[in-house]
């Protein structure tokens, strides 16, 4: 049973980890846009 739960947990750890990287990239991009709009002012 340990192997089963480890496999399921690992699957979701990989997917959530990837989703976190996507979210971080969104945040960085948003920061860049904010910087650009501040420069324009």
């Amino acid at each position: 049973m340990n192997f089963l739960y480890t496999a399921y947990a690992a699957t979701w750890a990989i997917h959530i980890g990837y989703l976190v990287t996507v979210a971080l990239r969104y945040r960085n991009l948003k920061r860049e846009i904010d910087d650009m709009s501040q420069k324009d002012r």
Partner: protein
Amino acid sequence: MKKAFPILALLTAVFLSYALYLALEVAPREQTMGDVQRIFYYHVPSAWTAFLLFFINFLASIQYLVRRTPSTDKVANWLLITVAVLSCVAAAIIGMVPSLKSALPADVRLSSIATTGPIIAGLYFLVRKLFSLEGVDALAITTAEVGVAFCTVVLVTGPLWARPVWGIWWTWDIRLTSTLVLWLIYVSYLVLRRFSSSGQTPVLAAALAVFGALDVPLVYFSIWIFRTQHPQPVIGGGGSIDPRMLHVLLINWLAFLCFAGLVCWSRYRLEMFKRQVEETQALEALLEPRSVPR
């Protein structure tokens, strides 16, 4: 579409939870392996999803290469139409000639031969219709990245299943090795896209992806062609599976497909958004007044 995303995300989360419940509680316990066999409901759908994503990456990469010049684009379109027609004609001829029909391997159906060409052509033209030239490039990055995530799941859950069943974590047999090679090819594709700033990067990456995709059929058919440690396919290939297990497997695959679709959607939007920002930054840099050297 923006408002639909949270609703679809919620529905997918519910669907994934239901699929997990089926995998852990409803699917029958396998007699030889016991409960550890339930890894199958995550391992196999992840592999199928990764293959599908790499196939879409292949189509997008081909389109990026051929659509840059109108003449090659036209040739590719006609080639796809020819492939679709030929696969139907080949199936009809094999069906009419008994000697050819008997020469077919037992697992290959005439309907598979007849539908493979039109399905590939249909997908190709669908991608062509839905995405611009820049869009197919973004689609290629998206599917490669999400595909690598799913392929990582396969490479992690596989050894976790193998250890209690085979007694080893890993063996260098053709199925396992070709899957690792497939993962390495797409990781190198992503590394190329991430760290190369040359204008030719999308073309080089597309060429790499086309060759990388050749490994997908090798991975899939390796257990049909070679003698391997890996079990034989459960669908087709002479394999058999309890209908209740098959039902749970397909539900899990569908749930993972919905999840992959949503992840691809957000990653694609991020890519297009990033390109817009880079374009604006480049324009601003061009328009910025420069100090004139005296």
